[in-house]
């Protein structure tokens, strides 16, 4: 594998990791596969698009606002759609999540300036600049993505292991009722979880746009599934596992495409082969502990 491919794999892995964390954190607490998460990711690209082209904001301002709006969307979705179902059968929650996913996609389809047609994500110059490194031609975005992702992931670890609300997030994932008995406001902790997961997905969505600038209502679906797979491979519910799973999958995908370019159309087959392999050999994932059914 040459340098260029290494950076490509690192970039893709970082993107999967950023998305996978949202899946894994929500699953860890609510035992819910948040189907809308991939669409949250997709929306982040559109927020930048709207801010940049419609409101003529500078790119960085559009990006920052996108993260804020996307985080707010994550918060609102939990508040409006999931929270009322906290004590409902799990299947109701799952179907609501699927409905939420479709709703978000269709909002984009019917929006007059966005429509169902493909748009171009605005990419700033500093992202698409190309330079030479050890004889290989590297696009700046493949450096920026891992760096920004690393900063975000370190920030997340700081939040989880050094702050009170982070401690609450880890506690609530093992025992929601015991956390409640500590006098903690569990709704607040759950809200924060959705905000953090969505903000990371937004960063992922914006960086994804810089790498793959096609913007359409359905761009969140495939990366969403791959990131979810990464979360399962890493051990669903485990944040560090999701990071590792993301990198493993990103690297594996790039290595496969680079070594067998003629078969690159089968990349999802490779990803799901990895998933099945893991489910057979280590069902709880890389970092997972034996799963206990929540009652």
């Amino acid at each position, binding site marked *: 594998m040459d340098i260029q491919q290494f950076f490509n794999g690192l970039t893709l892995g970082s993107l999967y990791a950023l998305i996978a964390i949202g899946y894994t954190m929500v699953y860890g607490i609510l035992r819910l596969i948040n189907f809308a998460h991939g669409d949250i990711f997709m929306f982040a690209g559109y927020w930048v698009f709207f801010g940049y082209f419609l409101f003529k904001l500078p790119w960085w301002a559009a990006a920052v606002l996108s993260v804020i709006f996307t985080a707010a969307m994550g918060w609102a979705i939990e508040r409006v759609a999931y929270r009322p179902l906290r004590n409902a059968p799990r299947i109701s929650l799952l179907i609501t999540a699927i409905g939420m996913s479709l709703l978000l996609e269709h909002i984009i389809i019917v929006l007059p300036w966005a429509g169902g047609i493909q748009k171009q994500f605005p990419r700033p110059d500093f992202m698409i600049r190309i330079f030479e490194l050890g004889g290989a031609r590297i696009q700046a975005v493949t450096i920026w993505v891992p760096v920004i992702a690393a900063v975000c992931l370190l920030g997340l670890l700081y939040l989880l292991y050094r702050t009170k609300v982070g401690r*609450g997030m*880890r506690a609530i994932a093992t025992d929601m009722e015991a956390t409640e*008995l500590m*006098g903690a406001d569990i709704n607040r902790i759950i809200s924060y979880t959705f905000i953090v997961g969505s903000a990371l997905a937004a960063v992922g969505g914006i960086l994804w746009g810089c790498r793959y600038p096609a913007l359409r209502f359905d761009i969140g679906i495939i990366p969403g599934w791959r990131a979810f797979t990464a979360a399962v491979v890493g051990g669903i519910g485990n944040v560090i596992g999701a990071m590792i799973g993301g990198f493993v999958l990103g690297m594996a995908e790039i290595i496969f495409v680079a070594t067998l370019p003629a078969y690159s159309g089968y990349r999802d087959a490779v990803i799901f082969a990895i998933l099945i392999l893991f489910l057979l050999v280590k069902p709880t994932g890389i970092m997972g502990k034996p799963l206990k059914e929540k009652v």
Partner: protein
Amino acid sequence: MLEVKDLHVYYGGIHALQGISISVPEGSVVTLLGANGAGKTTTLRTIMGLVRPRVGEITYRGKPIVGLRTSRIVRMGIVMCPEGRRIFPDLTVWENLLMGCYARTDPEIERDLEWVFSLFPRLKERRRQAGGTLSGGEQQMLAVARALMAKPTLLLLDEPSLGLAPVLITELYNAFRQIHQEGRTILLVEQNARAALSIAEYGYVLETGRIVAEGPKDELVSSDLVRKAYLGIG
């Protein structure tokens, strides 16, 4: 301090509590005895707001608390140490204790940490260890210590002696005595009547959702019902 009046709780069609009335005066240790499935845990969970009663009143210092959120009830000073310890296994001992003061903002947290470490010195040695790696007895100490970190004025303990060796039970009950001497009121749920009646001044006996006996400690100890069913005498 705590008054429970005519409490009826249902789980679906099961009538789990059938009109329970309990009174816990300020500064006392009151025990609630009963066999498996009597409804002891249900009573405590209802006080904490985790279960809604169909009928009945619960007042704490004169204020009705039925319908309040658990986090609110904890902040009013009622803290429960749940059955089965329920410590956070992935968090360190230290972090478990910090979880105990989640709802607190006052500056006395440091002092209370010192206090619980003096009650349970073993926790101090193990403060960096994950809660899940502690022994059963240590986990129970951690669960009690964690509840104390929430600064309870009324502490609800649900079967703290369950599964512990006699030496550990003695150690734990010595800690309860100190906690009581510090001015805290305790409602102690137990199947181990001998241990419970060693510190309680008043007790209730619960059977299938009903109070079948109550009275001051001495009266209970000498009553036939308690002697036969709970102390194994006679």
